């Protein structure tokens, strides 16, 4: 008992406190969030502006930009403003794996472009199963509850570099807690059957469990990995040093000016089951 006390005592020493500090003045940069997928419909690009770190408002939408996506084979897809910073494709279309795409935007009479990003050949999500473990009920420590989680076995194509992003949905709602971004590279698994156990994504009975495997480019993988490190480990001793999350967007006339965010092309494969 004494031993237990001391352990918990040491654990509890660390503490967190919200503080108010003087922050440098904001730069109000253009932020682009854009993914082109290989599924029909719902192609969207979001344009916002960053604001002061301490400001209360969440986003500053940009509603007066011209937005197009170009393919290397000469296609052009135009987008129009919908709401909340989102621009929707004027026609229903889908990207084609193996083709490179880029984004071009005119904001405040200045052109922003993305680098070309190749839409990868999709890897099939594979076999989605449900596994479970017992855990103490946080509301009643005498009770045990069952937590269901996705268990997916995916066959990685042999001999090529593949990069993946896993996206989880619970009852058709995006489910990104506790891990906001889940990326994977096949560097250590090339050509193997990869058995992923996503124990941290817990579902309850009767939930609809949807798992999407997005096959992404190397550049998208690098961007998402950097983004992830900057939103999860900052401030820890083992954390990375704060850095600008650099994407693949730039002003055509002045490359020294910054554009935040990323544009990438992804191909996806989805599996859905209902938790028993």
């Amino acid at each position, binding site marked *: 008992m004494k031993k237990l006390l001391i352990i918990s005592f040491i654990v509890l020493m660390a503490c967190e406190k919200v503080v108010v500090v003087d922050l*440098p003045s904001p730069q109000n940069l253009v932020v682009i969030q854009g993914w082109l997928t290989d599924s029909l419909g719902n192609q969207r690009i979001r344009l916002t502006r960053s604001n002061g770190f*301490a400001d209360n408002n969440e986003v500053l939408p940009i509603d007066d930009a011209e937005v197009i996506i170009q393919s290397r084979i000469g296609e052009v897809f135009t987008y129009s403003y919908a709401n909340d910073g989102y621009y929707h494709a004027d026609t229903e279309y889908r990207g084609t794996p193996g083709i490179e795409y880029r984004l071009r935007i005119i904001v405040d009479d200045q052109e922003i472009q993305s680098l070309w990003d190749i839409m990868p050949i999709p890897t099939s999500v594979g076999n989605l199963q449900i596994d479970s473990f017992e855990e103490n009920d946080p509301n009643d420590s005498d009770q045990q509850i069952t937590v269901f989680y996705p268990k997916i076995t995916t066959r990685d194509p042999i001999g090529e570099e593949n990069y993946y992003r896993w996206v989880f949905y619970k009852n058709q709602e995006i489910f990104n807690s506790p891990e906001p971004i889940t990326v994977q590279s096949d560097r250590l*698994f090339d*050509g193997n059957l990869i058995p992923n156990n996503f124990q941290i994504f817990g579902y309850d009975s009767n939930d609809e469990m949807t798992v999407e495997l997005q096959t992404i480019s190397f550049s998208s993988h690098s961007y998402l990995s950097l*983004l992830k490190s900057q939103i999860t*480990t900052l401030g*820890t001793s083992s954390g990375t040093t704060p*850095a600008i999350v650099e994407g693949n967007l730039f002003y055509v006339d002045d490359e020294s000016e910054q554009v935040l965010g990323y544009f990438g092309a992804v191909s996806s494969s989805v599996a859905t089951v209902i938790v028993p």
Partner: protein
Amino acid sequence: MGLSSLQAQQDPLDQKLSFWGEITLFDALDSLRTQGLNIAYSADKLTNQALDIDRGTTPRKFLDYLKENLIADITFSGSQIILSPHIPQNYTVHGVLKNVESGEHIIGATVQVAGTNLGTTTNGYGYYSITLREGTYNLEYSHIGYRGTTTEISLYRTTYLDVSIAPKITELKEVEVLSLSDDVNLSETIPSINRITISEADGQIPYFLGEVDVIQNALLKPGIRAIGEDASGIHVRGGGVDQNLTLLDEATIYNPNHFYGLISVFNPEAVNNVRIMKGYIPPSYGGRTSSVIEVRQKEGNANKTSVSGGIGILSARALLEGPIHEGKSSYLISARQSLLNLSIDDFASTSVQRNRIRFQDLNLKLNFKYSQASRYYLSGYIGNDRNIAGLNSTRNWGNRMLNFRWNYLFTPRLFSNISAFVSEYNYKIESTEEPGAFIGRSKIADYSLKTSFTYVLNPNNELTFGWSAVYHRLLPGSREPLDQNASSTNSVQLENEQGLESAAYFSQETRKDNLTLNYGLRLSSLHTLGSGTVFDYQEGLPFADSTIIDTLRFDNLEVIDKKYILEPRIAINWRVNNKTAVKAAFSRTAQYLHLISNTISPEPTDIWKLSDRYIPPTTTNQYTLGLYKNLKDNTWELSSEIYFKDISNNIQYRNGADLVFNENIETELILSQARAYGLELFARKKTGRLKGWISYTLSRAESRIPENNSERFVLENHDKTHDFATSWNMQISRRWSASTNFVFNTGIPVTLPTDKYVFENNLVPHFEFRNNARLPNYHRLDLSVKWDGREVKKKGKTRKNKDYWIFTIYNVYARQNAYSYFFRESPIDPGTAQVVKYSIFGTIIPAITYNFKF
């Protein structure tokens, strides 16, 4: 030709003298002539002094008498006996300074010729050697932890003199503090040395959970600091954590940390003393650019077997030492074990899993005295940390070292040491979590041979020279499936690296009047050896996977690349008077090994990398100037120093650098020019009931890196403008003593965001300039009280065993010092961002430890 070699029979030298009683020298010599001896002398060179000769003495004894009393030097040339005036000779007095109780050799003690500024310090083996003009001298032996002594010596031949002195135990018991206090801080040529001796008040400095820690102690001295509490590694005068040469009994230790850096690997029970050289690195040391941290293990008691140890909340330790051959050879074995599965919450870890950690150390030392001239030492160390993260992953890491040394005295004036050691740092991770249950390993191993020679030319000149060769073998990483059949991960093995780092050096210490000059040169080199692969990149383009144009392969032991660097070092000491000295030094140092890490403080997973075609050696030029003054018979030591450091090829990493299993790490590096400068003030009271020091550092460390399309100097993560520390120890009564320290420093730089934005529901902080603000000031007060056990039993007998308790309070007023800021979305008010201050120790931490010796 000696006197005795003359024929004995009928030898006129063995007849009885024809004179006795009082007689002048010339009369006596004339009488010898009349006895048939062929005496030659020049009357205007010898002094015709009065002699008193015993009756019945022989001419041979008479001549010996003249020689021994320095009346005349005598030479035999055929049958002629020539008398000439005595010419004084130089002779050497040498020996070992020992602890009278344990027989252990005392390192770094001063041996001073009374009434002169001649003197020396005992070397790393307790050995000293002074060459003086013949005569009678008083030699003063002193060391801060011992009661000094004065010995009179008549030096008319080379003399071996071992001296034993007693440790100061409690000065209260002394009627009067008579002991000599050394002025080693004034007399040694080189500036900026900090010494820590755990057995004294240094061992009572209050620290976290009552632990005694040499590195934490060092952090209270000027110019030495860590980023924060939970931060591995120390920064010396603005240098990087990998730029300190950490030596345990002369063997390199690659990771001196246990438990996330809160505890160092040096078991205080087994440590004799620590010396940190930060302003000048003598030419005999190399391989790191910032400092030398030299930790020496105890030698073991050569007189009697004893056991000592201690137990606290965090760890327990024990030591056994004793003679192998009494008075000559001894052994020491010591172990330390953490007692609890400790953990510190990784608050920002998204998976709510705790890290648990255990550590242990084992130290060993044997020393054999083979003869007066020859002594062997064997030192060993094994340490391990075991960390269980969550349920599925176990990490182990640790250092191992084995060192064999041989001290040999060729002549009393030529001391040599040869050491051969193996030193290793291992890291291993086992993860049973799918996908990819695996075992990962990385390792660095050094196989080294070093020699050093010290030659005393004359009283004012000493020469040191030697060479060293270290074969480095680095296994940057391998990853294998945990279970060949079940695991989906592939085996990955990064190429091993091999390199031979060698150096040759010499230095001379020369003294003239009040000036002492220590200068020397070190020629260091690195040969990176095959087998290996080197990528060729397109010229003029940044190193990247996409700019590789060729892959070159090298065979086993083929030289891939070679580098040579000349490292001049010079230090000058101007002894203004017996209380004041001024010192200046310049040293150029080179480093061929780099710790690859892009986290704020190093992790056990970080790997070492040899310089290669694309990663040049880091070089540092350091300039130091200092003024030193001792007051009240060396009771008070004051110093002020300024330094400037210019660091070339300081390694930084690109944003978001991927350093794990990276085959061409050069694509992730940025080479920067760094500089550091500062002022250090230090005042220390060395003796008396109240002892302690005050330290203040004003400094800046920055490096020039590209940022936002331009290059500018950016503060280093560990920069602290003001750094104040003070530590005091007071003997209250016979059995009670108290210690306290207080630290205050400017907060470390922090990068504050200018903007925030949302990317897929994630609130992302955006930064403009790195390290554009600072954390709040850091301050903390610690206290400890030591209570010695009874020394006398109730019946009046002296207790054989000694023990004491130490009660410690760390962070007395529960200051919540900021360790870092982190940025998050408000849990209550989505869309709003928060700056959160994170403190590792948010409360006061009391602790108790029990220590014993018997």
